[in-house]
Structure formats: C-alpha cells, structure tokens
C-alpha cells in the first residue's frame, strides 16, 4: 500500500530471551535478545506468543510494535501496557524467560516523502507512543529530527520522555489531567502549532482512533500528509485471514491492518470515534 518503507527481513518465527524488564510509567519495557538479524523498520510490529507451547489458552499471538531495534546488539525493545491477560503475561516475565515472536509484520512508516525536506512531526497518544520511539530515533539519525507531540491521561502514562526529547527538535506534552504539559488533548496542541507552521509537512501518528480521526481532519485542512498506525483485533498478522479489517475510504471495501498497514495514509481509511 505505502511504498518507501525500507526493506525488512523475511517473515520468521524466532525465539527471544528477556534481557531486561523495567517499568515505564504504567507500562513495562522489555529488552529482548534475539539470535538472528531482524531487519525491522519503524512502524512494523511482531506477533508475540503469550502462553507456553503446551497451552492453547491464550491462543493467538499479540500484536506489539517494535519500540526499538538495536541491530548491532541484536536487541529488540517492546513497550507493553498491561490491559489484558496476554499483556499482563508479558509484563510478568523475568529476565531469562523466552518468548516466541512472529515477524517482522506490517509495512512501517514511509519516509520517502521526507527526503524532499519537509517537516516531520510525530504525534503519539497513550501506548501509541511505542512505535514512535523507534521512528524518532531513526529520524534523528537520518538528520531529520522530528517535532514531537505526546498525549496521555496523566504524567504516569508517559514513557521514554528523555529519549523522545533527545531525538526531537522540540517535545510537547499534553495530559488530560494537566499533571504534565498542556492540560487537554494532544490534538488541540497539534492544531495550535499547525496554524503557526509554515509549509506543509508529514505527520506520523499513533494512538486511539478518536485521536487519529481528529488528526486526519486537522492535517487535511492544512494540506499536511498524515500517516497513522492503526489497531485492530488480529488473528494471523500476515494478511491470510482477513480478520483485521478497516473500512477503506473509497470503494466500499476493507483494507487489512496487518498487511496493508498498520500504517495508512489517514485519507485512505474510514475511522470512527
């Protein structure tokens, strides 16, 4: 669907060993050591098995974004928010534990439009900040450090702020309860800055559907291109089952989040609040 994402490695199932598990606000950051090269680009995700091989419950792999990939050390990072039994299982894992991962999955954030020298903004809400962390680092390394906007319910829901800050030209925070940064939703903050911005740029977004919906509107008004990473329930993660459908903006059909996305130009999809 989107071109411009860099080439990723062949799909495989690989074992990963928990090197470190540390608290990041309400979430946990898992640092996983893997044996082989996993050429994964920002915005791609993994299917992570959340039961041992002799149990069939929970049955399905959980989609989790790569929050960083340190290729030289073969270390993968995930940031996991414990919302259900699968994510709680992962948050309980101790160093030394092993998990199976399927990946890399999905398309990743397209970076080709940036070469034309456009501004790159990053907008993350809640756990949606996870894939953007890797993106921010890559942008910084490509000498295109982003302007970053992050929103959360409260201060405790942020993570990796120092890293985000070091990768970005500027970092803007919004919280619902005002415990950090602007009191209000992050989209309000983005809207304010957008009105002051000069020529159109590219926005990379990840967060709740409601946030993406608003960003789609805001960006369109200002002729920005907005890419958003979407979430949907998944079974296969590879495009085989057609389980993870999102309505296409035109044609009346559906696109698959796992294989056509998870990153879409927000004009291509129909979001709902």
């Amino acid at each position: 669907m989107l071109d411009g994402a860099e080439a990723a490695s062949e799909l495989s199932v690989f074992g990963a060993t928990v090197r470190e598990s540390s608290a990041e606000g309400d979430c946990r950051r898992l640092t996983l050591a893997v044996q082989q090269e996993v050429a994964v680009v920002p915005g791609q995700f993994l299917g992570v098995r959340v039961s041992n091989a002799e149990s069939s419950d929970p049955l399905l792999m959980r989609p989790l974004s790569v929050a960083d990939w340190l290729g030289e050390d073969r270390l993968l990072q995930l940031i996991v928010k414990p919302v259900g039994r699968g994510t709680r299982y992962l948050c309980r894992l101790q160093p030394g534990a092993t998990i199976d991962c399927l990946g890399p999955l999905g398309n990743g954030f397209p970076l080709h439009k940036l070469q034309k020298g456009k501004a790159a903004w990053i907008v993350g809400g809640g756990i949606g900040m996870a894939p953007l962390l890797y993106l921010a680092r890559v942008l910084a390394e490509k000498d295109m450090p982003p302007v970053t906007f992050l929103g959360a319910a409260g201060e405790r829901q942020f993570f990796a702020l120092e890293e985000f800050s070091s990768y970005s030209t500027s970092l803007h925070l919004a919280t619902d309860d005002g415990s950090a940064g602007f009191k209000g939703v992050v989209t309000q903050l983005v809207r304010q800055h957008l009105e002051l911005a000069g020529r159109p740029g590219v926005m990379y977004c990840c967060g709740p559907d409601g946030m993406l919906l608003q960003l789609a509107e805001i960006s369109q008004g200002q002729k920005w291109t907005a890419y958003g990473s979407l979430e949907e329930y998944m079974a296969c993660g590879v495009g085989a089952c057609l389980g993870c459908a999102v309505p296409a903006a035109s044609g009346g059909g559906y696109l698959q989040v796992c294989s056509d996305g998870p990153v879409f130009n927000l004009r291509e999809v129909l979001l709902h609040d």
Partner: protein
Amino acid sequence: MTDLDVSLGPLQLKNPLVAVSGTFGYGYDYGELLPPDTFGAIVLKGTAPEPWPGNPPPRVVETPSGMLNSIGLQNPGVDELCDEYLPRLAGEDVVVIVNVVGRTVKDYCHVARRVSECGGADAIELNISCPNVKAGGMSFGTDPQQAADLTASVREVSDLPLIVKLTPNVTDIAEIAAAVQSSGADIISLINTLLGMEIDVEQASPRLGAVFGGLSGPAIRPVALRCVWEVYRAVSVPLLGMGGASTARDVLAFMMAGASAVGMGTALFAQPDGVQETLQQLRKFRQSCGEFDWPVGRAHEKGD
C-alpha cells in the same frame, strides 16, 4: 510420492496436511515461513461469482482455546481468482482446492463452472456451511435435501473432484453426509466452524461487528472428532477432517476417527512454525509403525 503421501479419493497428496479455507489466503501470505508446497493440499478462500466486501469489524475475537471469526467471506470474486491467484500457484507442488460460496444454486454453479474452465484447480470444495452469510449459505448445509440438490447441480457443471464441506451446527450431521454422497460428492470435508458469539461486558454489546461468528481452534476439536467419527460410519467416500487440529497427535486422532487427510486452520495463526514439526512427527510415527497404511478409521475397531 513421498514418505508421507496419502490418497484422498481421486486426489493424491504428498502429505496429509491441508491448509484450510480462509486461513491461508491464496497461498503466499506466510512467505518463506510456510510456502504453499509445505502442505499436501491448500484450500483457497471462499470464492463467489462477484467480489464480496465481507462484514464490518471487529471480525475476530479470541475465546478460550479458540477464536470466533465473522469475516463474512470477503473475496475478490471468481474472475480475479482465475486471472490472478490460480495462475500464480500453477508451478507449485501442491494440490490446489477452490472453496466455493454463493447465495443461490446458480451462484455455486457459476463459480464451479468458471473454475473448471479456467484451470489451475485440482478440486472444488462447496462451502455449504458458513455461518457468516445471512442469505442462503447456511440453509444449504442444514437441510439434507437442499444439500443434495446443490451437490447434484454442481456435479453437472464441473468434472473436477467435488468436495462438500459440512457444518456441525445440525442435529444429525451423518444424515447430511449421506445426502451429499448420494448426489455425487467425491470427498466430504468437515467441520466448518461452530456458531458462537462473545459479549463485551464493558460495552454491553456483542464483540463481533456481525454479532455471530464461527468458533474454531483447539476448543472445538472434540466436536470435530465426533462429527468425523459419525460421518465415517455413514458414508463410504473419504473424509477431509478438520477442527482444532494442531499437533501430529491431533492429526493422527482425526485419522483414527476416519479422516484420510487433515486440515489445519486456526493452528496456523497460533503456531505457524508448528507445521514443520508436525510433519516431522508424522514421519517418525510412520517409521515407528513399520506399516504402509495410515491408521484411517482405526479407532472404530475398538470403539464399538
């Protein structure tokens, strides 16, 4: 011929594992991890005369040891199948089966005829059992007479080996099996999913966009084995068993209940890397038996 080959009626499979309809796309979604020729046969996604958009999301939800799906037979229609997907599979060392869906007898016949003409398919599987289509679809599979009539009609328009796929959501599956056999089915495949639903308690609403979905995965294996067992006793055509199989032990259990080949669907999602392991174990089993035949129906000898 390999060390694992099986006969499924008129079809010769190089191993007894079949990737089942709707879980393996058109063969290439798993890339190098699971190329189509891993399997003895692959069944493509249910295909209708025209493109179908499918059901609104959410379409899948996990359940205890299983999952519900309400894909609603999203498919690009038979023309795209013939033009795009079947030709791509032409060189592969795998039996290719097209799963056919429709709302009317005419629909089924149209797809069957078109697939027979365009070439590239080794067999046709009639999905008379999908719980995700409101009009038609389901009732073909729950009424013996309608199932028989549909089978007979498709039989007339296609010379390809004809598989009829049964639903477990009936009072007497053996009766339907006998009916489709007598109308010319070469092979019977079973089971399709069990009709189910989940409720999101926080939202006080059904979890699936389409309310109902089909239950698959290990949870349904005991029901699937029972259906295979019952149908094995009622018909003489070979059976393609499926429903929750994931390990080599499961595959052998389906065979012992009466299946000549065994399908895997949901297991591919849960453990896509398990297929090679399963084949390996089956190889060991055959070596350890020192027998030439697969143990098809073997458990019936002790189960009387």
